[in-house]
C-alpha cells in the first residue's frame, strides 16, 4: 500500500511527498526530524539526506552577511490593493496574514551589508510571504537595491525564492518584470556586476526577469527553476516530463546557470566572487565594523580607480 511505502513518489509541481506532515522541522524527503535551533544551525540543510529546506529572508541574510553588517532599506513599503482583489479570500487579508506570519513587510528584503568583508547590495526574497510572489513592492524594492548598488559603487546580489508574479496585482505585477529588468540594466550602465542566486523555487515572472540576468547565476541544489511549473507543462503538452525537469542540476547541464552551490558553501562562494569582482582587494583580517558609515568621497574614488584598473 502506498501509505507504508518508504519510496518517495515524485509527482506534479512539488516532488516532495504529498503525504508529508506539515511540520516545518521534519525533512520532507527522508523524514528526519530536527529541533528548531538545530535546523537553524544546520543552515536548514538536512544532515541525513542533504535536502535544502526553504529559508526565510532574515535567516538567509544572517547566513550570508558578516554579523551586524546588514542595514535594511525601504523597510516601510507595503503592498496596496489597487484592484480591491478578492478570490476565495481578500488580497488585503492575505497581506495582513502574511505580515503577521513572517514579520516582514513584503516578499523581499533589501539593503546593504558585507560578505566576507566585501560590501554589496543585497535583495533577498522570502517564499513564506505569499509564495514569494512579485508585486509592486517587490519590484520597487529590487529597484531600490539597484539604486543602492549604484550609489555605493558595489555589486548587487539577489537571492530569489518565488513562485512568480503576484496574480492579485495582475497587470501591475507583470510590469514589475520590466521594472526589475531595467534595474539590472541600470547596473550594467554603471558597470557593476549582478549575482543572481536561485533557490527553491524560482519560477514564473521572477526567473523570466531579473533572476535570469545574473552576470553570475548560482543555484541551490534541487531548486526548481522553470518559467512554467511542471504541472502546467504536463497539462498543456501531455509530454512526459524528465524526472529532473527544471531542477537546478538540469539547468546546469543545459547551460542556464554557472554552478549549483550547496548552502554550506554559498556565503564563501559569494565572498570569493565579490573579491574577484573587486579586483585585488585583499581578504580582510578583521571583520568589517557593524553598520559601516557610507564610504567617503576618497574611498569611493579609490574603489572606482580599482575597478577601472581591474578592467584594464
Amino acid at each position: 500500500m502506498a501509505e507504508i511505502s518508504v519510496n518517495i513518489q515524485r509527482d506534479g509541481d512539488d516532488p516532495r511527498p504529498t503525504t508529508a506532515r506539515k511540520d516545518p522541522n521534519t525533512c520532507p524527503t527522508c523524514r528526519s526530524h530536527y529541533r528548531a535551533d538545530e535546523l537553524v544551525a544546520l543552515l536548514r540543510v538536512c544532515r541525513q539526506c542533504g535536502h535544502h529546506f526553504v529559508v526565510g529572508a532574515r535567516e538567509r541574510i544572517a547566513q550570508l552577511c558578516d554579523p551586524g553588517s546588514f542595514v535594511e532599506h525601504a523597510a516601510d513599503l507595503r503592498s496596496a490593493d489597487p484592484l480591491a482583489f478578492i478570490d476565495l479570500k481578500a488580497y488585503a487579508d492575505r497581506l495582513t496574514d502574511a505580515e503577521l506570519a513572517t514579520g516582514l513587510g513584503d516578499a523581499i528584503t533589501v539593503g546593504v551589508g558585507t560578505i566576507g568583508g566585501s560590501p554589496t547590495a543585497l535583495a533577498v526574497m522570502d517564499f513564506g510571504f505569499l509564495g514569494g510572489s512579485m508585486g509592486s513592492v517587490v519590484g520597487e524594492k529590487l529597484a531600490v537595491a539597484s539604486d543602492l548598488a549604484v550609489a555605493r559603487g558595489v555589486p548587487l546580489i539577489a537571492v530569489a525564492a518565488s513562485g512568480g508574479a503576484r496574480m492579485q496585482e495582475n497587470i501591475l505585477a507583470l510590469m514589475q518584470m520590466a521594472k526589475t529588468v531595467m534595474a539590472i540594466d541600470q547596473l550594467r550602465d554603471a558597470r557593476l556586476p549582478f549575482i543572481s542566486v536561485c533557490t527553491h523555487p524560482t519560477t514564473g515572472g521572477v526567473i523570466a526577469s531579473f533572476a535570469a540576468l545574473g552576470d553570475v547565476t548560482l543555484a541551490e541544489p534541487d531548486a526548481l527553476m522553470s518559467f512554467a511549473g511542471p504541472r502546467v507543462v504536463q497539462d498543456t503538452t501531455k509530454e512526459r516530463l524528465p524526472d529532473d525537469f527544471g531542477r537546478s542540476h538540469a539547468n546546469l547541464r543545459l547551460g542556464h546557470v554557472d554552478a549549483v552551490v550547496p548552502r554550506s558553501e554559498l556565503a564563501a562562494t559569494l565572498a570569493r566572487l565579490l573579491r574577484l569582482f573587486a579586483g585585488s582587494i585583499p581578504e580582510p583580517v578583521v571583520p568589517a565594523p557593524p553598520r559601516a558609515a557610507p564610504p567617503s568621497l576618497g574611498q569611493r574614488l579609490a574603489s572606482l580607480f580599482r575597478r577601472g584598473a581591474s578592467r584594464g
Partner: protein
Amino acid sequence: MVRVTDEVRRLRRRFQERGEESQIWDAVLLARHTSRPYTLDYVGGLFSDFYELHGDRAFADDPAIVAGIGTYHGRPVVCVGNQKGRDTVEERIRRNFGMARPEGYRKAIRAFELADRLGFPVLTFVDTPGAYPGVGAEERGQAGMIASSILAMARLEVPVIATVIGEGGSGGALALAVGDRVLMQENAIYSVISPEGCASILWKDAAQARKAAYAFRPTAASCLDLGVIDAVVAEPSGGAHKDHERAIRLVDVAISAALDEVLALAPRDRRLARRAKFRRMGVWGTAEPDTTASGLAAER
C-alpha cells in the same frame, strides 16, 4: 426585517456587478475572436512594403513570432509581433496558437538590435495567450529569453511603439511590449496570467475564469487607469473583427501620433524616459517607518 430601499440598492449593485462582469468577459472573448485582425493583417495594411526575416541563427525559426523590415509612411521601421494561425487547423498548429518558443524571442532580439543599429523605429504587435510551456522550450531557456527580450527592448535608443491587438498574455506578451508608448485596442486584454490560469490557481477551478477576469480586470480601461498603457485605440462597433480595414486605420492613426511624439526626443533620452516610465509602475503604500528594521535589529 429587511428595509426595502437597502434591498433595492443591494440588488441594483449586484446587477451592475453582473453587467460589469459580462462586459469584461465580452472583452476576453473579443480579444480571442478568431476573425480578429492578427499581426500580419496590420503589417499588410500599414506598410507599403515588408520583408520578413526568419530564424534565430541558433536553432530554428519560430512562426509564432514574425519579424521584419517595413516601410511605414515612407519611413523604414522594424516590426515584430506575435502571430496566430488562421483558417486551417494545420496553420494554427504551425503558428502554435501564437505561443512563442525561445527561438521566437531570439529572433525578436535580433530584429530589435538591427533596428537600433540602423536607427529604425520599432513597432510591435502583441497577441499571444502566453509563451509556450513545453519541455523543449524550457530546456532551451524560455525564461532567460523572455528576460533578454525585455532587456533588449529596454536598451533601445530608437522609438518603440507597442500595440496590444488581442491577447496580451503574461511574460510572453511583455517580452514584446516594453514601449515608449504602449497602445491597446478597446477590446484587447492584457494580464499577468490567463483568466483560466488565474482561476485554476486561486479558485482551484479553471471554470471560474469569468469570475477571475472580473476580479483582475484585464481590460484596456483598467490598464489605462493603472498607468500601464498610454492610450486606448477605438475599434469598429462590435469589435475589430467586424471591419478589418477600419480597425487597421484606427491603429494607424494612434501609432502615427505616438511615433511623432517619441521621435521628438533625443535617442539617449528615449531610453532613460522609458526606464523612468516603467520605474513608476506599481502601487504601494508605507507603514510606520522602520518597523521591519527594528524587528530585524531586535532579532539579533
